């Protein structure tokens, strides 16, 4: 599929904010001196009066977003995942989560696919952190089509939402004319009976690729895209556990606290089956080209195939 279009979800984020601004007049955008990178600069160019740069001060930005939301605006507070979920965690918890304010956090540059900047900027912990906040919704879109719809869906949902976007251009595989994003609903992309591969974000495409190789080997793998990590579609996850008897989770995030943990927690309560988690192990990332890093950390179709083969043996 050499001719497949690739696009970074941060681009989708910036463009959809611009495209939705006219329809949602209370939408305003905040950034912390990263507008060029988070792509909110696209919005800024079109709507300079509704864009507010907070400077390199993420804690304050989250508080400002809370104040805007408390007075009827729909603020999108944007910065890198590292600073949104990491540095500003306590402000997100106490000033946004606890009062359940209608703040949308647009966190870009999530995961190791940040690339050359290395470990300080590669946030593999944000999903884990955000999951611990009661009432927080977490969306991790898999491609451009899903990301755009997810942004509008977040606007229409009243309450705090953490949205995770990537720096790396990734394949656009959803059909923009037919795809319909439903908050909190997982998507079965491919049916299968031997194993379910549950993936999120940019790993969904890799999971699909892996399922094709597995099919050639005679393994029928179901592929599920979980774009909304919280609230998790436990009904679907539990059904997959019961139907296929083993689950493999794939995420560009620490194996501690992310999608894999969420799935394992759900499955233990409804249909205990083996859950094999693929993600970044308990370690930091490092510098390098994003695509090479993904391979090095096993976040690729090849490793999914290998781990899935072994996972089936656990049944």
């Amino acid at each position: 599929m050499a001719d497949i279009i690739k696009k970074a979800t941060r681009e989708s984020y910036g463009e959809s904010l611009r495209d939705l601004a006219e329809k949602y007049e209370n939408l305003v955008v905040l950034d912390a001196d990263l507008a060029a990178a988070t792509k909110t600069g696209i919005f800024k160019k079109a709507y300079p009066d509704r864009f507010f740069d907070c400077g390199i001060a993420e804690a304050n930005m989250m508080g400002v977003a809370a104040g805007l939301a408390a007075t009827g605006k729909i603020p999108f507070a944007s910065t890198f995942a590292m600073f949104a979920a990491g540095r500003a965690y306590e402000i997100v918890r106490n000033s946004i989560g606890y009062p359940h304010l209608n703040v949308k956090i647009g966190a870009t540059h999530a995961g190791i696919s940040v690339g050359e900047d290395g470990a300080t900027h590669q946030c593999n912990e944000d999903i884990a952190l955000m999951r611990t906040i009661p009432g927080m919704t977490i969306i991790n879109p898999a491609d451009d089509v899903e990301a755009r719809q997810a942004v509008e869906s977040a606007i229409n949902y009243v309450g705090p939402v953490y949205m995770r976007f990537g720096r790396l251009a990734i394949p656009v595989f959803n059909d923009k004319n037919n795809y319909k994003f439903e908050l909190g609903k997982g998507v079965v992309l491919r049916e299968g009976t031997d194993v379910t591969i549950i993936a999120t974000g940019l790993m969904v495409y890799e999971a699909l690729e892996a399922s094709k190789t597995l099919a050639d080997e005679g393994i029928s793998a179901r592929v599920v895209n979980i774009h909304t990590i919280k609230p998790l579609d436990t009904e679907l996850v539990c059904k997959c556990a019961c139907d296929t008897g083993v689950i493999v989770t794939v995420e560009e995030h620490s194996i501690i606290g992310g999608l894999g943990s969420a799935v394992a927690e759900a499955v233990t309560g409804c249909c205990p089956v083996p859950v094999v988690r693929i993600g970044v192990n308990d370690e930091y990332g490092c510098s390098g080209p994003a695509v090479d890093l993904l391979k090095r950390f096993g976040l690729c179709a090849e490793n999914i195939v290998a781990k899935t083969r072994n996972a089936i043996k656990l049944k």
Partner: protein
Amino acid sequence: MDEKIKKNLMKIACKARMGVIEGTYNAKSGHPGGSLSICDLLAYLYFEKMNVDPKNPEMKDRDRLVLSKGHTAPALYSILALKGFFPEEELKTLRHIGSKLQGHPCINIDGIDMSSGSLGQGISVACGMALSAKISSENYKVYTILGDGEIEEGQVWEASMFASHYKLDNLVAVVDYNGLQIDGKLSEVCSPEPIDKKFEAFGWHVISIDGHDFDQIEKAFSEADTITGKPVAIIQKTVKGKGVSFMENQVSWHGSAPNKEQYEKAMAELNQQLKDLED
């Protein structure tokens, strides 16, 4: 200030202090010291200055107040009860399981505009509210009250930079300068002084007053209304524990509740003060 209005405010502040003692005594915990130091300020704001309506707590164009020093919620709860947002009897439920009067302010209480308590965060929220009014050309004002120890938090200065950059002249931040924080005197813990110079350096219009003098309080807020193009910081010098003799200027009363004997003594003192005002 008109003497009749002043006397009325003094009575309200005195009653608010009783509410603080009542609440913390019944809770067997809480922060009376810093609550007592802001009762005069809150009495002025809620009974003279702010456009709020207890019958319509969600009124869209109401003035907002964010108690950034959220641990002094007992003072705010007292004032809101006196104003009629909820029955004064509820003050006794402070910090009890099932009570709406949480240890720190919670947004779902009538009259409370924002949850707060983790220090340094309220001023950022107040900035957001003030910016929001600017965006949609609304005329409400936003007030926030900070502790003097609280301003040791770095976020306060991020917010201060933001407020002056966006020329939030609809924002007034009051620093309750009682000179004490949990570990001791400001000057001995990790001093943020000089406070006025710091806000000036961050581009604010600064007014320094005695926070227990209603004439000075009124003058400061009237002056704040005339300032355009920059936010206003009112540094009010106060006495921690004000109004209860044995609590005044005693750091030990930052975060401990009176026992029965102390409660009775404090209430007797405040009742006498109220009686003196009514004579």
